[in-house]
């Protein structure tokens, strides 16, 4: 009901509006008769006036009726209900309090979250006696603040003020899903839902929101917006080296930033010490990629931070990452038996190509490989292997399960059936390997199709050398859904890549022949192989950075004793948080699961005194990048989601309190009545 009335009986006085109507009708019927000497002058004066007069009389009638209706309405003392208003007395209010990272933005000395808590607490105090309240904090996960519905009042209001924000992003659909449960448990119905938020939502799929609202049997949403301008100065993302890094190697770490001021300085810290600086040159609010060239430190995991001076939202001014530097990559090279025929023994070209500091190559024939060899290798390469045992195949699959990678060089036309039906199927690639007819085995040039991590930052001249190489192919790969990284001139793939579980697999469907003018003779061959291997062996990935509000896990090669997680916040003034971890199994791999971590920082997985690894947790970039919805935009969002009535108030707008507690409408209606009467008088005089 949009209005409540103090004297609803007075609404019957609105029937008085019929009086002018009746008088009008009577007057229309009863017209006096006047004899006049001549109508000549009246007829002349009457021209063009009769129609406007008729309209004016009708308007006068309507104005008179409106004035009477307004008077009756004012006498009934209407009141516009506020967000904390209800007509039944007892009241159940479900508060959805946005506790996402953007709520930490400082507005006039207070954070948005602080304003939100104060507002929710104020509402809690003003609720009628015996009303009940529940608060759900709205972040990546939705948590109930009280164990159940509690009586609204001073004590619950004080408790609300103790809430703290998270570094996650607000998950609106999850909140509405949770609402259903609490609405069912509420004592008083209907339950009112009050959303207190800065209206910054990450909604990738509006259908999820619709579904969530559909399940809810409430179609009214009250919202209080707390916001001003979005905070800038954020570090939106960090780009880590795409290939394995060894100590003292020059590497470039990039960061996408959105400066608060032009010329804002950003710094890169590794293990707490400043390593590089960069200055943003774009206008405030515009995203820019900054490059931080550094020299890789000693082997190991290094916690890094790209940070800037804080603006109004400190949480997104620093973005953590972990730089993995390896001493060398243990590469296990599994090859088939050498029996002198063409296509065999080519693995040695690969072994030679990967010689150097970065790789530590162990070559084993297929029948000598043990499961343990595979488990301890950083990268496994298979070069025309003989059929492998079931255990070895399972072990290879496990490699991808724990995020490891495989390099396949398959060119032996005698083993095509095994490769196609067993090896590649096990590794998640359903394709057809077809031998190329001898008549078509001409040498072909290469084309790089996908400038992925293997080819990134390769000089143009090197690419030209690579593409000028002549390649003899014996196998064609058909019906593959893998990415064609390189192609022959005829269009058949020369290098394919796909993902299996969490690992990456690259297939080169050709032999490494000792043939003159073939690929092995190309100057770029060692570089290409090293790049492929380093890409596959990479320990750094931007994907390793978790967003606050997500589950943080760490894969274990061996089962640890009792492990735990220490969360080291990025912001120094926050304390170190210790969290328990659970060990669970996934595809035979032990996973340490710290659960949902809703604060940005470094999650150190420790077992006893040993550090197992570190996972950086950061504020979701959507918290910096997503716009704050305006009232109208939010209303549209909520209406589209299925709410039929959406009331929105801004906490910093004038009249907020009256909006909260309702508004007497009688003075405004009386004012409207006076205006109507003045207009009526003006029209009547003109008539």
């Amino acid at each position, binding site marked *: 009901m949009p209005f409540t009335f103090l004297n609803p009986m007075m609404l019957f006085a609105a029937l008085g509006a019929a009086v002018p109507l009746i008088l009008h009708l009577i007057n229309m019927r009863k017209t006096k008769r*006047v004899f006049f000497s001549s109508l000549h002058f009246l007829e002349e004066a009457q021209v063009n006036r009769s129609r406007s007069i008729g309209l004016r009389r009708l308007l006068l009638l309507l104005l008179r009726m409106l004035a009477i209706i307004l008077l009756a309405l004012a006498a009934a003392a209407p009141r516009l209900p506020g967000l904390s208003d209800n007509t039944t007395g007892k009241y159940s209010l479900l508060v959805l309090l946005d506790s996402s990272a953007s709520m930490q933005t400082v507005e006039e000395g207070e954070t948005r979250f602080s304003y939100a808590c104060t507002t929710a607490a104020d509402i809690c105090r003003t609720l009628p006696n015996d009303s009940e309240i529940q608060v759900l904090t709205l972040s990546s996960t939705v948590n109930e603040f009280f164990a159940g519905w509690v009586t609204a009042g001073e004590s619950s209001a004080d408790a609300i003020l103790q809430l703290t924000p998270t570094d996650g992003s607000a998950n609106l659909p999850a909140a509405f899903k949770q609402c259903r449960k609490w609405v069912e448990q509420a004592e008083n119905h209907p339950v009112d839902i009050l959303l207190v938020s800065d209206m910054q939502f990450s909604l990738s799929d509006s259908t999820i929101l619709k579904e969530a609202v559909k399940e809810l049997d409430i179609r009214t949403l009250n919202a209080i917006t707390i916001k001003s301008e979005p905070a800038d100065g954020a570090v939106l993302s960090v780009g880590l080296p795409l290939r394995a890094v060894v100590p003292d190697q020059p590497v470039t770490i990039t960061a996408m930033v959105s400066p608060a001021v032009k010329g804002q300085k950003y710094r890169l810290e590794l293990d707490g010490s400043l390593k590089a600086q960069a200055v943003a040159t774009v206008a405030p609010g515009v995203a820019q990629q900054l490059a931080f060239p550094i020299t890789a430190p000693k082997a190991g995991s290094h916690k890094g931070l790209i940070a800037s001076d804080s603006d109004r939202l400190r949480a997104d001014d620093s973005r953590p990452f972990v730089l993995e530097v390896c001493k060398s990559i243990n590469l296990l090279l599994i090859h088939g038996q050498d029996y002198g025929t063409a296509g065999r023994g080519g693995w040695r070209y690969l072994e030679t190509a990967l010689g150097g500091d970065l790789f530590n190559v162990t070559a084993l024939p297929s029948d000598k490989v043990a499961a343990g060899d595979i488990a301890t290798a950083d990268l496994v390469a298979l070069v025309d292997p003989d059929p492998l045992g079931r255990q070895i195949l399972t072990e290879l699959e496990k490699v991808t399960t724990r995020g490891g990678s495989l390099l396949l060089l398959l060119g032996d036309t005698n083993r095509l059936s095994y490769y196609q039906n067993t090896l590649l199927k096990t590794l998640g690639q359903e394709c057809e390997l077809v031998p190329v007819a001898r008549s078509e085995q001409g040498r072909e040039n290469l084309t790089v199709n996908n400038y992925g991590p293997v080819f990134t930052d390769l000089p143009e001249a090197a690419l030209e050398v690579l593409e000028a190489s002549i390649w003899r192919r014996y196998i064609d790969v058909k019906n593959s859904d893998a990415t064609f990284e390189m192609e022959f001139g005829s269009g058949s793939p020369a290098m394919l890549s796909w993902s299996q579980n969490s690992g990456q697999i690259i297939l080169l469907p050709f032999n490494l022949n000792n043939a003159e003018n073939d690929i092995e003779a190309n100057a770029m061959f060692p570089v290409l192989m090293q790049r492929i291997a380093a890409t596959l062996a990479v320990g750094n990935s931007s994907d390793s950075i978790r967003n606050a509000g997500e589950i943080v896990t760490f894969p274990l090669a061996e089962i640890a004793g009792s492990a735990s997680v220490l969360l080291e916040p990025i912001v120094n003034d926050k304390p170190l948080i210790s969290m328990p971890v659970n060990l669970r199994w996934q595809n035979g791999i032990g996973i340490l699961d710290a659960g949902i971590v809703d604060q940005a920082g470094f999650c150190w997985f420790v077992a006893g005194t040993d550090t197992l690894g570190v996972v950086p947790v950061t504020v979701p970039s959507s918290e910096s990048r997503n716009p704050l919805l305006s009232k109208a935009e939010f209303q549209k969002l909520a209406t589209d989601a299925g709410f039929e009535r959406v009331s929105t108030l801004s906490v910093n707008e004038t009249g907020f309190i009256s909006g909260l507690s309702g508004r007497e409408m009688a003075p405004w209606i009386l004012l409207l009545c006076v205006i109507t009467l003045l207009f009526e008088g003006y029209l009547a005089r003109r008539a």
Partner: protein
Amino acid sequence: MSQSILTPDQVAKLGNLDVIARLVVEGFLVGLHRSPYHGFSVEFAEYRQYIPGEPATNIDWRVFGKSDRYYTKIYAEETNLRATILVDASSSMSFKSDENTTSKIEYARLLAASLTYLLLKQNDAVGLELVSDKQLASVPARAVRKQLFQVLKELDYIPEPKSTTSIGPVLHKVAEKLPRRGLIILLSDLMDDPDEIMSGLKHFRYRGHEVVIFHLLNPQEIEFDYRGEARFEDLETGNNMKIDPTHLRTSYREKFEQWRTGLREECRGLKIDFVDMTVDTPFDRALMAYLRKRARMR
């Protein structure tokens, strides 16, 4: 019967006016009217005490011989002014704004009677023409006493007006019929086609007549001060229209005044006296206003 029209009070008021001399000076007297004191029919009226400085020729020595006082003789001068009073008896003349007021035709009757009485008292010949779209009655001008009764009789029997005002053609007929060089006094609201009226009036002027128009109107016709919506019915045509007078008042007044001004201007062009009268104008003031105007035209 005449008493109901012309009260003795009114007659007495008119009788005290010195109208004769002015009419003579204006040249409406034929023949010996060049000088007011040399007419061929001078009738003794009364004695007045001699005022030193006056010419001694007017002293009545016979009276001096009897009473030893100087008296001068005052003569009532007889003129042969031939005046014809035209009374418009069309339907529009029967208009009255409410039951208690005088209609224009009633007022015209009283005024015509008054004028007849006045003119006969001056020994002028008076005639009457009652016109609407045709000649309703006609009394040829004569200067005899009983002429008054003749005129009043016709005025008493003005028939209930039913016709539309179309006095233009009738004016032509009257102009043809009347002897030349008389005085035409038209009592009408002139609610007819102005061109036709002017055409008739021009005919009078062409025949050497002096014309005076008493334009009779009801104040409501000028002010149009009606309230509330009403159905207005034309007295002449019977047409009606439903209007709210308040909406049309200003526009009506403009149109009406425009018409009156037009009539006035045209009459001035024809050297016709045009006297605005309303039914609440007192008779004496109306007549005196007219006579004064004549005096100024000398």
